[in-house]
């Protein structure tokens, strides 16, 4: 694999975590993951955020690919994209692997001394 492709995937990860780095957006995702697809009016109704504010957050999430929007009649309906979230998880797992290696070294260190 080329270095450029790796860099591209990292840029994608940065975008993704940036999208997740906000409490309202995390709450929106939580709502979509538990309550299923929802329209902006429904989402705005369940949060103390203006319709305009919700729209802005949803657009950030959509740009990061975490949610998908489809038109249903006059309304946009938003759905969670689980595969993109799994990707976020994989990136955390890269950090976690760093911990795995450190803990393995700790174990070896303690058990031989």
């Amino acid at each position, binding site marked *: 694999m080329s270095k450029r492709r790796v860099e591209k995937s990292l840029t994608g990860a940065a975008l993704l975590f940036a999208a997740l780095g906000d409490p309202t957006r995390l709450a929106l995702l939580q709502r979509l993951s538990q309550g299923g697809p929802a329209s902006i009016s429904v989402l705005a109704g369940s949060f103390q955020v203006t319709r305009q504010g919700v729209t802005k957050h949803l657009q950030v999430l959509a740009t990061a690919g975490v949610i998908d929007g489809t038109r249903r009649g006059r309304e946009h309906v938003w759905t969670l994209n689980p595969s993109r979230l799994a990707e976020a998880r994989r990136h955390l797992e890269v950090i976690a692997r760093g911990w795995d290696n450190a*803990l393995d070294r700790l*174990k070896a260190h*303690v*058990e031989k001394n």
Partner: protein
Amino acid sequence: MTIAELSRIDRTIEIAAPPERVWRALTTVSEISAWFEVTIEGDIAPGSTLWMTSLHAQYAGQRFAVHVKEMTPPRRFVWQWHPGEVDPSVDYSREPQTTVTFVLEPSGGGTRLSVSETGFNEISLARRAKVYGDNSQGWTDVLAAIQKYVEAAR
């Protein structure tokens, strides 16, 4: 998978030594240097800030601050740091940190050691992007390996 799981890392390992021994390895400068592959400036004490410099081949020379929040021997050791911090020209002091908690529990004749790193959801937009950018050098090999594995499995 829940959304909450995206903001933290949890790991557990069984070690064939009593908690007192593991505690010493976690909290003594010479010992932590050996297994965490860092040099350490400063004392490991509650409330103290120490500086670690990586000796790991991939990150050699990177220097980062570790803030010791809690030491309850031989049970709980908590520190905070800025994940991915590498740029010496940037002042990170006002940015949110992740919290690393080590919990030691007796298990058989040994120790069950759990480590959690929490607070990834608190890291700001710009910072989050930078964390992943900063680490790109170190992660290149890991990501390359993952991609190779995934592509071979197709």
